[in-house]
């Protein structure tokens, strides 16, 4: 009975995920006009302010614990909303990058690949930031740290730079050949 239920659950989860990835989930952008109409304006400075530890300390000192918790939850909810919108923007930009790659233009293709790379990296970062913000929303006074499981950022950055240099070299060679 347990194995049957497990199998049913696993199958249903898999079917749900297939449906989720196949349906058009993000705003459909087919042109730059679509992007201009559908992009979300989110200011990084406001996001920074929402998560500023000094600001958090000030609020903790200025309000009663109950008021602080309510206020802090609202700030975290806003921060979560902001990064959800940033994630939507990144998804739309990824699609524009894919569309730009269809144009047979090596310089534009390189630019598009960089854009897709950056957008994807942003979405990976969002995956790591979201649980922390959610925990802060759940426990407004919490100031702990999560264990890191990722490859160090510097290592990634150097890898990214190596790829970039290699691509620039390839592009130069292609231009010289043509």
């Amino acid at each position: 009975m347990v194995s049957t239920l497990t199998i049913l659950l696993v199958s249903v989860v898999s079917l749900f995920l297939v449906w989720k990835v196949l349906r058009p989930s993000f705003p459909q952008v087919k042109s730059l006009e679509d992007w201009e109409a559908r992009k979300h304006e989110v200011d990084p400075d406001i996001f920074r302010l929402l998560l500023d530890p000094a600001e958090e300390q000030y609020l903790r000192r200025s309000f009663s614990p109950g008021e602080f918790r309510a206020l802090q939850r609202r700030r975290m909810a806003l921060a979560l909303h902001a990064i959800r919108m940033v994630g939507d923007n990144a998804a739309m930009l990824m699609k524009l990058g894919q569309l730009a790659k269809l144009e047979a233009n090596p310089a534009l293709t390189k630019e598009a690949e960089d854009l897709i790379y950056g957008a994807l990296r942003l979405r990976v970062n969002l995956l790591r930031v979201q649980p922390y913000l959610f925990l802060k929303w759940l426990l407004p006074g919490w100031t702990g740290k999560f264990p890191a499981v990722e490859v160090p950022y510097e290592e990634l950055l150097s890898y990214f730079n190596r790829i970039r240099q290699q691509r620039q070299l390839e592009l130069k060679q292609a231009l010289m050949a043509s």
Partner: protein
Amino acid sequence: MNFFHLLTSALWFLPLALQLAIAVSMLYRGLARQFPFFFTYNLTLPARDLILASLPYGGNLYSAVYWWGDGAAILLALVVIVEVAFHLVGRYPFLRFLFKVLPSIAAIAAVAAMASLIWTRGPAGADIVLEWTIYIERSVRFLQVCLLILMLALMSRLGLSWRNYPLGIAAGFGLYAAFDLLLLELRAHLHALTDNSFVLLRSTAYNLGVLIWAAYFLLPLGEGPINRLPPNDLGQWNDELNQKVDKWYRR
């Protein structure tokens, strides 16, 4: 020719034709090198079906080709999942953690599948060998579906949904494997399906999976290119989030 025979023939022929077309399209689009195992999969299954068509139905040789072919197809499908993961990580190195998570999920799923196989009461039908084969197949499918869940969840969260070949491959396998797992459970454990309906539904599930691959590999893009990219603040946001991650995650 009765309706059942006509339907099974159509369900047999459609994926055979589509998979050969997918293989040709992969060669044409230069994707065979990028996904060699998926390309092999699309050639192996039609080849097995063509061999089966030339053999007398129900004989020992037919049975051997069918079941060994089925086992090879499942193993090949598992390799394709790793290929898809490798393809993603090769392009985007910051997804390298996937190769840390994938073996752990596989180990947990394999243990669960083995436990389910051991604790089960065993085959109760007339054909013990066939039923054991189905039980073992069910366990391997379980492992496959668990890995696909991880892949699909990750791709969905990353927004890799539009014209993304790895996603198309994973979605096709995900749909087929999930339905197949359900059908194997209904047939082998619950005895809720007759042999005919089991064969028909299994074939339908496979057809659905192949149709997803066909949509990704055969259909034209349908959308025009754009000739410039808009200015954006991705770099600024990435810096901002990297600072937060550095601060919030203990190294």
